[in-house]
């Protein structure tokens, strides 16, 4: 990939109509992408926004397709819609029928709906199947400057490419299927300026957990966040996806990173990415996707990461997080009554005592997977820690690649063998234990270090206790038997 992001644009903007004011009014990245998708703008009404890519999965779509049938409507753009089975699919025995009859029915209904309405669908076992937010980028369907929606809150993942990407409900899924548009009020803009470089041993996951801990689970509500600064520029696409993925955990409507050479290098040659002359046109267009120097954000947050340490959650929302060097906090230290009440409930649910060093927390299960951390780089990061080591006796450890493509790549690199030699189970792709809609669940009281995105009560199984961690910390924790960093293992050996 040799084209430079600084190349002069040559006038092949994706759409020029609403872009005309760009010459005069400085705009942020999200405003530029938003403006070029406005089909109709009228006073007192939300913008009618065109949707470039609509991702569909089995859980939030059946009622939307029913709605279309009831009203006799068709899918306006089946070719801008792609479906896959991810939430419900088992991660073992995918060549056999799904044992849970209700899950099986939902998967069948997805396939039938896609066949009826002419939508490409990657069902369980297909070479392109995987978690919806993994396959969009890896197939080259997610591109800079696009609008991407899905009936799933982690659609924010796709913002890593400089797309405006957000989760929607089932009524909106039906609306997009029928019209390829959505009426949306433009969110406010928010910049998170990351200052300093990520220290060695810290990952994108630690960065985003720290951000959520800083601004809170409601800190981004009503906003599109743009992540900025050298530390963000230095992240791989996988890392940027991890950060944008968890924007929703700070309440944000979406998260974005301006596209650059890292983005273009990732995309070039992907199955659906433009080729030849079309690729050149796309690059010209994408060069405009930056926040203008004199543009202003509605809210700016500065976060210094130069002394960051790996982060782990202690509570029942992703904002309840501390450095692994820290201790379980005491509700008494909290000034806001709502925070105190929430912390008390969380400690009770999690079975933790204030003041316990985080490293003293022993776990029963380690889960490496989910749309946050199941890409090839995440698996490499964990495998590097596990190589030549063994999972602690009695501990259950699952590795669930995000997609069949990720799984195949990992197997080509021998990563599956490293996981298995260490005592991990190497599974088939899907959402798996992130939300426990398939058989991968925690038992009541079972404690898990998880690379997923939500430590909500019951999220990984009724009564299950979740600590959110990076893939490196998950792997080290599997070996140590308690929350640990890879450096802890080096020191012990």
């Amino acid at each position, binding site marked *: 990939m040799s084209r430079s992001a600084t190349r002069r644009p040559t006038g092949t903007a994706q759409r020029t109509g609403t872009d005309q004011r760009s010459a005069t009014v400085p705009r942020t990245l999200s405003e530029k992408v938003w403006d070029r998708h406005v089909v109709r703008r009228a006073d007192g009404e939300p913008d009618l926004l065109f949707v470039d890519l609509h991702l569909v999965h089995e859980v939030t779509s059946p009622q939307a397709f029913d709605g279309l049938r009831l009203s006799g409507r068709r899918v306006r753009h*089946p070719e801008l819609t792609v479906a896959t089975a991810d939430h419900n699919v088992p991660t073992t025995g995918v060549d056999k029928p799904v044992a849970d009859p209700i899950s099986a029915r939902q998967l069948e209904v997805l396939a039938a709906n896609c066949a009826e309405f002419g939508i490409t669908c990657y069902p369980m076992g297909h070479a392109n199947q995987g978690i919806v937010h993994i396959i969009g980028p890896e197939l080259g369907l997610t591109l800079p400057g696009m609008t991407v929606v899905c009936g799933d809150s982690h659609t924010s993942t796709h913002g890593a490419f400089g797309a405006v990407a957000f989760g929607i409900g089932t009524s909106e899924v039906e609306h997009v299927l029928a*019209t390829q548009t959505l009426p949306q009020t433009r969110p406010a803009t928010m910049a998170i300026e990351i200052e300093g470089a990520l220290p060695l041993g810290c990952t994108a996951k630690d960065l985003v957990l720290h951000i959520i801990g800083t601004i809170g689970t409601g800190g981004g509500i009503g906003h599109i966040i743009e992540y900025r600064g050298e530390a963000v520029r230095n992240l791989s696409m996988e890392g940027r996806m991890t950060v944008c993925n968890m924007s929703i955990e700070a309440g944000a409507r979406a998260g974005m990173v301006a596209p650059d050479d890292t983005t273009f290098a990732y995309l070039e040659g992907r199955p659906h990415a433009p080729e030849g002359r079309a690729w050149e046109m796309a690059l010209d267009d994408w060069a405009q996707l930056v926040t203008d120097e004199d543009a202003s954000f509605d809210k700016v947050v500065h976060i210094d990461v130069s002394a960051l340490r790996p982060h782990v959650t202690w509570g029942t929302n992703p904002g309840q997080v501390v450095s692994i060097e820290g201790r379980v906090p005491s509700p008494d230290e909290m000034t806001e009554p709502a925070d105190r009440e929430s912390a008390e409930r969380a400690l009770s649910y999690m079975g933790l005592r204030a003041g316990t060093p985080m490293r003293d927390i022993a776990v029963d299960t380690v889960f490496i997977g989910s749309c946050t951390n199941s890409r090839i780089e995440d698996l490499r990061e964990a495998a590097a820690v596990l190589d030549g080591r063994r999972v602690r006796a009695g501990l259950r450890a699952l590795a669930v690649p995000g997609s069949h493509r990720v799984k195949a790549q990992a197997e080509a690199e021998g990563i599956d063998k490293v996981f298995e030699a260490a005592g991990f189970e190497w599974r088939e792709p899907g959402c798996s234990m992130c939300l426990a809609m398939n058989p991968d669940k925690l038992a009541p009281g079972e404690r898990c270090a998880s690379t997923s995105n939500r430590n*909500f009560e019951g999220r990984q199984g009724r009564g299950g206790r979740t600590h959110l961690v990076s893939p490196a910390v998950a792997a080290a924790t599997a070996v140590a038997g308690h929350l640990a960093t890879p450096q802890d293992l080096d020191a012990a050996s």
Partner: protein
Amino acid sequence: MKAVQVVTGRAVPLERSDVDTDQIIPSDWLKRVERTGFGAGLFAEWRDDRRFVLNDERYAGATILVAGPNFGTGSSREHAVWALMDYGFQAVVSPRFGDIFRNNATKQGLVPVVVEPKLGGALLQAIRDDPSIEITIDVARGTIEVPAAGLAGNFPMDEFDRERLVNGWDDIGLTLRHEPDIARYESERAVWLPSAAGAVSASGTAS
């Protein structure tokens, strides 16, 4: 969507913050392909606790839920709205809602009422003190009133959402009035934008 102009009724105090949609309707319930019958799953895990407020008979039949800040954060599942409505709620009051939940609510006719934290606290107190107290939420005027407790306030709502709620308008029908605008936009889209049509093979070529 059924039009909703005024909601008058008793309320349930849910004195918790950060009530995410996983709590409102746990994921086990999401396997259903229907839109109805989710009321039984509302706050399913919490309802197993006898002391949970929804199990308090004094609040049976209430139509308004009053909660702490950050209600409906997390997962985009519209099932959360379906569950609340199926159970019998017509409005939810909180100092702050998750964006997607709030959108989903207005699509279904569940009124999301954003109140100042101070008023939210006073409402909780009033309902706790007197479970029979009546609250009136006027969508058109954007007001919430509890005359018996001397409480009143305004709540913000997007004008378009307000009109849709009050009139019970169907979103898709409204959008399709602008079909010519959509068609014009489509004709101007860049040629290099991707199409998802046709499965691609594992090696990367279209099949």
